Protein backbone atom coordinates (compact mmCIF):
# COMPACT_ATOMS: atom_id res chain seq x y z
CA UNK A 1 0.00 0.00 0.00
CA UNK A 2 1.50 3.27 -1.10
CA UNK A 3 1.30 5.95 1.56
CA UNK A 4 0.73 9.55 0.52
CA UNK A 5 2.82 11.15 3.27
CA UNK A 6 2.10 14.78 2.39
CA UNK A 7 -1.65 14.08 2.34
CA UNK A 8 -1.36 12.31 5.70
CA UNK A 9 0.44 15.26 7.25
CA UNK A 10 -2.06 17.66 5.72
CA UNK A 11 -4.95 15.66 7.21
CA UNK A 12 -3.25 15.62 10.63
CA UNK A 13 -2.72 19.39 10.59
CA UNK A 14 -6.24 20.07 9.30
CA UNK A 15 -7.73 17.88 12.01
CA UNK A 16 -5.70 19.72 14.60
CA UNK A 17 -6.72 23.17 13.41
CA UNK A 18 -10.32 21.94 13.30
CA UNK A 19 -10.02 20.73 16.89
CA UNK A 20 -8.51 24.04 17.97
CA UNK A 21 -11.30 25.90 16.23
CA UNK A 22 -13.90 23.74 17.95
CA UNK A 23 -12.27 24.41 21.33
CA UNK A 24 -12.51 28.17 20.80
CA UNK A 25 -15.98 28.02 19.29
CA UNK A 26 -17.86 26.77 22.33
CA UNK A 27 -19.21 23.81 20.40
CA UNK A 28 -17.54 21.41 22.84
CA UNK A 29 -20.00 22.67 25.44
CA UNK A 30 -23.50 21.14 25.19
CA UNK A 31 -24.84 23.94 27.40
CA UNK A 32 -23.80 26.54 24.82
CA UNK A 33 -25.04 24.48 21.88
CA UNK A 34 -28.43 24.02 23.50
CA UNK A 35 -28.50 27.73 24.40
CA UNK A 36 -28.08 28.47 20.69
CA UNK A 37 -30.94 26.11 19.85
CA UNK A 38 -33.16 27.52 22.62
CA UNK A 39 -34.51 30.17 20.27
CA UNK A 40 -37.71 30.82 22.26
CA UNK A 41 -35.94 30.87 25.61
CA UNK A 42 -32.66 32.30 26.83
CA UNK A 43 -31.14 32.45 23.35
CA UNK A 44 -27.40 32.76 22.80
CA UNK A 45 -26.40 33.55 19.20
CA UNK A 46 -22.71 32.63 19.69
CA UNK A 47 -22.83 29.59 17.43
CA UNK A 48 -24.16 31.71 14.58
CA UNK A 49 -20.79 33.44 14.59
CA UNK A 50 -19.04 30.08 14.53
CA UNK A 51 -20.99 28.96 11.49
CA UNK A 52 -20.75 32.37 9.85
CA UNK A 53 -17.00 32.55 10.28
CA UNK A 54 -16.50 29.00 9.08
CA UNK A 55 -18.67 29.44 5.99
CA UNK A 56 -17.08 32.80 5.15
CA UNK A 57 -13.58 31.31 5.03
CA UNK A 58 -14.81 28.19 3.24
CA UNK A 59 -16.43 30.33 0.55
CA UNK A 60 -12.95 31.56 -0.33
CA UNK A 61 -11.68 27.99 -0.32
CA UNK A 62 -14.46 26.84 -2.64
CA UNK A 63 -13.80 29.76 -5.00
CA UNK A 64 -10.12 28.81 -5.20
CA UNK A 65 -11.07 25.16 -5.69
CA UNK A 66 -13.28 25.99 -8.68
CA UNK A 67 -10.30 27.66 -10.31
CA UNK A 68 -7.97 24.74 -9.58
CA UNK A 69 -7.39 21.73 -11.75
CA UNK A 70 -6.59 19.44 -8.84
CA UNK A 71 -5.78 19.52 -5.12
CA UNK A 72 -2.11 19.79 -4.16
CA UNK A 73 -1.63 16.26 -2.80
CA UNK A 74 -4.11 14.27 -4.86
CA UNK A 75 -5.00 13.77 -8.50
CA UNK A 76 -8.62 14.94 -8.24
CA UNK A 77 -11.16 16.59 -5.98
CA UNK A 78 -13.41 14.08 -4.19
CA UNK A 79 -16.74 15.85 -3.86
CA UNK A 80 -20.27 14.53 -3.36
CA UNK A 81 -22.06 13.95 -6.66
CA UNK A 82 -25.65 13.34 -5.53
CA UNK A 83 -27.85 16.33 -6.37
CA UNK A 84 -31.39 15.29 -5.41
CA UNK A 85 -32.95 16.43 -2.18
CA UNK A 86 -34.46 13.10 -1.23
CA UNK A 87 -36.33 11.67 1.76
CA UNK A 88 -33.18 10.09 3.19
CA UNK A 89 -31.47 13.46 3.34
CA UNK A 90 -34.37 15.12 5.09
CA UNK A 91 -35.22 12.22 7.42
CA UNK A 92 -31.57 11.70 8.32
CA UNK A 93 -31.05 15.40 8.96
CA UNK A 94 -34.15 15.53 11.14
CA UNK A 95 -32.92 12.59 13.22
CA UNK A 96 -29.50 14.16 13.47
CA UNK A 97 -31.05 17.44 14.61
CA UNK A 98 -33.11 15.72 17.29
CA UNK A 99 -30.05 13.92 18.61
CA UNK A 100 -28.07 17.14 18.52
CA UNK A 101 -30.75 18.93 20.48
CA UNK A 102 -31.05 16.13 23.03
CA UNK A 103 -27.33 15.79 23.73
CA UNK A 104 -25.91 19.10 22.64
CA UNK A 105 -23.15 17.25 20.82
CA UNK A 106 -22.46 16.44 17.19
CA UNK A 107 -19.71 14.24 15.71
CA UNK A 108 -16.75 16.63 15.57
CA UNK A 109 -17.14 18.16 19.02
CA UNK A 110 -17.96 14.80 20.58
CA UNK A 111 -14.77 13.19 19.29
CA UNK A 112 -12.67 16.21 20.21
CA UNK A 113 -14.20 16.29 23.70
CA UNK A 114 -13.13 12.68 24.34
CA UNK A 115 -9.81 14.01 25.59
CA UNK A 116 -11.51 16.10 28.27
CA UNK A 117 -12.04 13.00 30.40
CA UNK A 118 -15.82 12.86 30.65
CA UNK A 119 -17.46 9.44 30.71
CA UNK A 120 -20.65 11.09 29.40
CA UNK A 121 -18.88 11.98 26.16
CA UNK A 122 -17.58 8.42 25.88
CA UNK A 123 -21.14 7.11 26.16
CA UNK A 124 -22.26 9.52 23.43
CA UNK A 125 -19.41 8.61 21.07
CA UNK A 126 -19.93 4.87 21.53
CA UNK A 127 -23.66 5.29 20.90
CA UNK A 128 -22.86 7.43 17.85
CA UNK A 129 -20.57 4.72 16.48
CA UNK A 130 -23.28 2.12 17.09
CA UNK A 131 -25.82 4.33 15.33
CA UNK A 132 -23.50 4.63 12.35
CA UNK A 133 -22.98 0.87 12.23
CA UNK A 134 -26.72 0.23 12.44
CA UNK A 135 -27.24 2.61 9.54
CA UNK A 136 -24.51 0.87 7.53
CA UNK A 137 -26.21 -2.49 8.03
CA UNK A 138 -29.65 -1.06 7.30
CA UNK A 139 -28.40 0.58 4.12
CA UNK A 140 -26.77 -2.64 2.92
CA UNK A 141 -29.93 -4.66 3.48
CA UNK A 142 -32.26 -2.06 2.09
CA UNK A 143 -30.45 -0.79 -0.98
Amino acid at each position, binding site marked *: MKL*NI*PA*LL*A*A*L*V*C*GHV*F*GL*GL*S*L*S*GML*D*PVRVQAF*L*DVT*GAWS*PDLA*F*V*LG*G*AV*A*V*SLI*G*VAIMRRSRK*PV*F*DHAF*HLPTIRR*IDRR*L*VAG*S*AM*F*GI*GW*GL*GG*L*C*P*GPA*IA*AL*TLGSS*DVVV*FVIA*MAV*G*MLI*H*DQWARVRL
Partner: protein
Amino acid sequence: MNSYIVPLAGGLLIGLSATMLLLLNGRIAGISGIFGRIVERRGAATDAAFVVGLLLGPMAYSLAAGHAPVSTVTASTATLAVAGLLVGFGSRMGSGCTSGHGVLGLARLSPRSVAAVATFLAAGVLTVTLVRNLAP
Protein backbone atom coordinates in the same frame (compact mmCIF):
# COMPACT_ATOMS: atom_id res chain seq x y z
CA MET B 1 -20.07 42.41 21.18
CA ASN B 2 -16.64 41.20 22.25
CA SER B 3 -18.08 37.93 23.57
CA TYR B 4 -18.62 36.96 19.94
CA ILE B 5 -14.98 37.37 18.97
CA VAL B 6 -13.79 34.06 20.43
CA PRO B 7 -16.56 31.97 18.82
CA LEU B 8 -15.95 33.85 15.56
CA ALA B 9 -12.24 33.06 15.80
CA GLY B 10 -13.14 29.43 16.36
CA GLY B 11 -15.33 29.50 13.28
CA LEU B 12 -12.57 31.08 11.20
CA LEU B 13 -10.19 28.28 12.25
CA ILE B 14 -12.79 25.65 11.38
CA GLY B 15 -13.21 27.29 7.98
CA LEU B 16 -9.44 27.42 7.52
CA SER B 17 -9.14 23.73 8.33
CA ALA B 18 -11.90 22.83 5.89
CA THR B 19 -10.35 25.03 3.19
CA MET B 20 -6.93 23.45 3.66
CA LEU B 21 -8.29 19.91 3.50
CA LEU B 22 -10.20 20.79 0.35
CA LEU B 23 -7.33 22.50 -1.48
CA LEU B 24 -4.56 20.16 -0.28
CA ASN B 25 -6.27 16.75 -0.24
CA GLY B 26 -9.38 17.49 -2.27
CA ARG B 27 -11.65 16.19 0.47
CA ILE B 28 -14.65 17.48 2.41
CA ALA B 29 -13.96 17.87 6.15
CA GLY B 30 -17.19 16.15 7.09
CA ILE B 31 -16.68 14.51 10.47
CA SER B 32 -19.63 12.12 10.20
CA GLY B 33 -18.13 10.84 6.95
CA ILE B 34 -14.58 10.63 8.26
CA PHE B 35 -15.56 8.93 11.53
CA GLY B 36 -18.29 6.91 9.83
CA ARG B 37 -15.78 5.40 7.43
CA ILE B 38 -13.47 4.49 10.30
CA VAL B 39 -16.33 2.88 12.26
CA GLU B 40 -17.44 0.98 9.14
CA ARG B 41 -13.85 -0.26 8.77
CA ARG B 42 -13.25 1.38 5.41
CA GLY B 43 -11.45 4.47 6.62
CA ALA B 44 -8.49 5.82 4.71
CA ALA B 45 -5.19 6.56 6.46
CA THR B 46 -5.95 10.25 5.99
CA ASP B 47 -9.24 9.76 7.89
CA ALA B 48 -7.32 8.35 10.86
CA ALA B 49 -4.74 11.14 10.66
CA PHE B 50 -7.49 13.77 10.71
CA VAL B 51 -9.09 12.22 13.79
CA VAL B 52 -5.73 12.07 15.59
CA GLY B 53 -5.22 15.76 14.85
CA LEU B 54 -8.78 16.50 16.00
CA LEU B 55 -8.21 14.73 19.32
CA LEU B 56 -5.09 16.80 19.92
CA GLY B 57 -6.90 20.09 19.33
CA PRO B 58 -8.40 20.57 22.80
CA MET B 59 -5.07 19.57 24.35
CA ALA B 60 -3.29 22.33 22.45
CA TYR B 61 -6.02 24.75 23.51
CA SER B 62 -5.56 23.69 27.14
CA LEU B 63 -1.82 24.28 26.97
CA ALA B 64 -2.26 27.71 25.42
CA ALA B 65 -5.21 28.89 27.52
CA GLY B 66 -4.12 27.33 30.80
CA HIS B 67 -7.44 25.53 31.21
CA ALA B 68 -9.43 22.94 29.32
CA PRO B 69 -12.27 24.09 27.05
CA VAL B 70 -15.53 24.23 28.95
CA SER B 71 -17.78 21.23 28.34
CA THR B 72 -20.78 20.72 30.58
CA VAL B 73 -23.04 17.78 29.87
CA THR B 74 -26.48 18.13 31.45
CA ALA B 75 -28.32 15.25 29.80
CA SER B 76 -28.69 11.92 31.59
CA THR B 77 -26.67 8.91 30.46
CA ALA B 78 -29.77 7.35 28.92
CA THR B 79 -30.56 10.53 26.99
CA LEU B 80 -26.96 10.74 25.79
CA ALA B 81 -27.11 7.18 24.52
CA VAL B 82 -30.30 7.91 22.57
CA ALA B 83 -28.85 11.20 21.33
CA GLY B 84 -25.68 9.46 20.16
CA LEU B 85 -27.65 6.78 18.31
CA LEU B 86 -29.75 9.45 16.56
CA VAL B 87 -26.71 11.57 15.65
CA GLY B 88 -24.83 8.53 14.36
CA PHE B 89 -27.67 7.02 12.36
CA GLY B 90 -29.05 10.38 11.23
CA SER B 91 -25.75 11.84 10.05
CA ARG B 92 -25.00 8.78 7.89
CA MET B 93 -28.54 8.65 6.53
CA GLY B 94 -28.46 12.38 5.83
CA SER B 95 -24.98 12.14 4.29
CA GLY B 96 -23.47 14.72 6.62
CA CYS B 97 -23.59 16.84 9.75
CA THR B 98 -22.73 20.36 10.87
CA SER B 99 -19.26 20.28 9.30
CA GLY B 100 -20.05 18.53 6.03
CA HIS B 101 -23.38 20.20 5.28
CA GLY B 102 -23.24 23.22 7.57
CA VAL B 103 -19.78 24.48 6.63
CA LEU B 104 -18.67 22.99 3.32
CA GLY B 105 -22.11 22.34 1.90
CA LEU B 106 -23.29 25.90 2.44
CA ALA B 107 -19.97 27.26 1.14
CA ARG B 108 -20.48 25.18 -2.01
CA LEU B 109 -24.02 26.60 -2.27
CA SER B 110 -25.30 23.04 -2.38
CA PRO B 111 -29.13 22.88 -2.39
CA ARG B 112 -28.90 19.50 -0.63
CA SER B 113 -26.88 21.03 2.17
CA VAL B 114 -29.21 24.00 2.50
CA ALA B 115 -32.08 21.54 2.92
CA ALA B 116 -30.07 19.47 5.40
CA VAL B 117 -29.01 22.46 7.50
CA ALA B 118 -32.51 23.95 7.56
CA THR B 119 -33.87 20.56 8.63
CA PHE B 120 -31.40 19.79 11.38
CA LEU B 121 -31.50 23.32 12.77
CA ALA B 122 -35.29 23.21 12.89
CA ALA B 123 -35.21 19.75 14.48
CA GLY B 124 -32.65 20.88 17.03
CA VAL B 125 -34.59 24.01 17.93
CA LEU B 126 -37.83 22.04 18.23
CA THR B 127 -36.20 19.40 20.41
CA VAL B 128 -34.60 21.85 22.83
CA THR B 129 -37.80 23.93 23.00
CA LEU B 130 -39.96 20.87 23.73
CA VAL B 131 -37.56 19.45 26.31
CA ARG B 132 -37.22 22.74 28.14
CA ASN B 133 -40.93 23.45 28.18
CA LEU B 134 -42.33 19.97 28.76
CA ALA B 135 -39.78 18.28 31.00
CA PRO B 136 -40.59 18.36 34.74
